[in-house]
């Protein structure tokens, strides 16, 4: 089953889990599976048009899915999907 790595800002929505196994054969199916299992993540991942929000980067292993086939990118059982929002912390945190 593919593994989804959850960034710190979304962990409140996954009960603190940093990695969640979600079944699916493409990126979209896995991420929608994540949203179904942890509804708090849905609005942060997907816009009203059902597409990924532009401020959320999604990687299949180490490749940005946008340079692959986007949400239609095929996913294998051993693959890892990384959800990556920008972080700005540094100086004054």
């Amino acid at each position, binding site marked *: 089953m593919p593994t989804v*790595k959850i*960034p*710190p*800002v979304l962990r409140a929505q996954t009960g603190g889990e*940093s990695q969640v196994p979600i079944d699916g054969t493409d990126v979209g199916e896995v991420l929608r599976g994540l949203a179904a299992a942890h509804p708090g993540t849905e609005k*942060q991942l997907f816009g009203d048009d059902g597409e990924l929000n*532009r*401020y*959320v*980067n999604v*990687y299949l292993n*180490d*490749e*940005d899915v946008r*340079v692959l086939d986007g949400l239609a990118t095929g996913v294998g059982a051993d693959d890892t999907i*990384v959800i*990556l*929002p*920008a*972080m*700005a*912390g*540094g*100086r*004054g*945190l």
Partner: protein
Amino acid sequence: MPTGAELIEMIKAGIEEVQPSEAHEELTANGVALVDVREQHEFEERHIPGAIHVPRGHLETRIEQFVPDKDTRVILYCASGNRSAFAARTLGEELGYSDVASLAGGITLWKDRNYETVVPRKLSQEQKERYSRHILVPEIGLEGQLKLLDARVLLLGAGGLGSPAALYLAAAGVGTIGLVDDDVVDASNLQRQVIHSTETIDVPKTTSARRAIEALNPDVTVNEHRMRLDSSNVIELLSQYDVIVDGADNFPTRYLLNDASVRLGKPVVSASILAFDGQISTFVPHQGPCYRCLYPTPPPPELAPSCGAAGVLGMLPGVMGLFQSLEVFKLVTGAGEPLIGRLLLFEALSTTFTELKVKRDPSCPICGPDAPQLADEDLGKFPDYEAFCSGSVLV
């Protein structure tokens, strides 16, 4: 027994001597090893560009380290061509080098014939000692250390990331460090901002950091920039530096810095942290992606908790800030492979590193091929960055 002069004649008769013009011609080709066999102080005073320095007294023990292939064409030189003649015989007859010559007349004749020489910059005795562990590393050496001493590095933020980065860059001998911060040291900073101390609570962070750096390394000139970066000052400030270390705590500053650095062609080492997680990448304009290629738009406030207060493990900015100083080292010296086009994620609790590929976005409005070159008069047209961070209060 021959006299010294007769011996030199005999030796020279048994080796190949090349005239400066011939040697100069040969040295334009690759694969020729030019070896200076004089003493250390002579080499330091002046030498031929590209020369390897192996004093004659250490020739037998060290030459193989520098010229491992014994079929390499080797040209030896000294001051006048005598010591190099003896050295040529040693290499040819005793060490089995097959293609050795001695430069006739040495560097003296070479210079008289107006061929190029270099007068190397020198380190003081104190600097030689201080940086000896760098100089001993072949990838750094004296040359790399001089590059560090010449480098001008601007740190955005003298806080969690800036503290360790500044300390290690200062220790490494980065000659000029600029610190941008308008804050004062607070007791709650000291859990991670290790450049500050209990004694400097309520002191401006730039001043507190400058004191620590000056105590650590008097070679470093520290420029205090007690200000917030904005579109009116960013270009002038960045222009004074070679590399920017971004440890800013907000998105407006990160986008502003990115746009200005792309316009100026300045590399930015960017790191950020949250709770137990860190990210770092190095953005070199037009060589790799820029910050906007990676993050075209900032996240909404609920996904950007840095606009408000959040917690962080003290060691995490320590790790990430040191990675930033390491990136600066690579950019300045040219050693190794900086994190260009690579985003490194660090999860402190599991001690896991994840490397992601970041590609240039052909439609990037800042560094893409169709992006307009930002001219001076366009600087005021930076988007209103403050608006979207202060937007957090609207939620």
